[in-house]
């Protein structure tokens, strides 16, 4: 073994040990500064709660997304309430008491929001009803046409006249 290769080996070993030391140091730092598991669970809970709440300053953003100072304050408030043991419903109630239902992205079902919640279904039902009436009428009309096709030209004319009358009378 030459002198240089021994040197190289030694320096590689030093580098390797230094690297592993650095890695261990990083790990120690990471572990000591990593939040506890309960904190992670709380963060997740707050994140999902905040993304259901509206920021009142920039109204199309959730509390989780917004960088408005008020949103920051409200996030702090929500966190404090959560840490003090309040449930998600209680926290929502706290904000609704101050800012109204508007803070909730999902409006509650109550008499004033019935139109909002059930209106679309009502419209759908109306549409189905209109569609059904149209289809039934059309079916009745094609039935007429089948009957007239079988009869003579004179009755066909009569049928056409009758249909014209029917249309006019409608």
């Amino acid at each position, binding site marked *: 073994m030459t002198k240089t290769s021994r040197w190289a080996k030694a320096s590689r070993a030093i580098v390797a040990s230094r690297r592993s030391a650095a890695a261990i140091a990083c790990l120690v730092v990471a572990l000591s500064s990593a939040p506890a598991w309960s904190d992670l669970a709380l963060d997740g809970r707050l994140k999902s709660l905040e993304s259901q709440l509206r920021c*009142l*300053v920039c*109204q199309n953003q959730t509390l989780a997304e917004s960088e408005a*100072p*008020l949103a920051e*304050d*409200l996030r702090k*408030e929500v966190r404090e309430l959560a840490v003090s043991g309040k449930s998600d419903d209680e926290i929502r109630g706290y904000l*609704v*008491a*101050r*800012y*109204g*239902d*508007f803070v909730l992205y999902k409006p509650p079902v109550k008499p004033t929001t019935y139109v909002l919640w059930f209106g679309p279904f009502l419209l759908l039902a109306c549409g189905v009803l209109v569609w059904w009436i149209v289809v039934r009428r059309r079916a009745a009309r094609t039935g007429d046409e089948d009957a007239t096709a079988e009869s003579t030209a004179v009755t066909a004319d009569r049928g056409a006249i009758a249909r014209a009358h029917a249309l006019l*009378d*409608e």
Partner: protein
Amino acid sequence: MKVLRWSLPLAIFVVVLVFLFVGLFHDPREVPSPLIGKPAPSFSLMELHRPDHKLATADMRGQVWMLNVWASWCVSCRVEHPLLVDLAKQNIVPVIGLAYKDKPADGLAWLASNGDPYKLSIVDQDGRVGIDFGVYGVPETFVIDKMGIIRYKQIGPLTAEALKQTILPLVRELQQSPA
């Protein structure tokens, strides 16, 4: 049936049109406050001019008063401020100023240069009381009756019309009603 065929869609169209037309005049930033008709949230805050004194909601019991939420960093507060200065001269109703998320020194300097229309000023440095009052856009103004119930909330700067047509008549009416 024949009449229905054209009148029904027309009726629906007109209804939709009316809804949309009314919607044009609604400001989406004005969220109706759930606090109207409810007792004003209780607070006890440091006075701006006398830091060793505090003002609490209960201290205002028995009189109709207004709470004006403002801040030295708030641009539109400058717009409404002359109206408040004017109102103060008329001596109709005490207005308490709430310096929202403001440093006392900044607030004092602002009042010194723009005029101080407030019977008393209090400081809400961390914005906690602002949250209790459901404040989301400074300036905001509350009218509170003798029983401590919030009767009206103006979101955004006061206007001469709002004062003349809504706020002052309400204040007079509340002042006449027994405590």
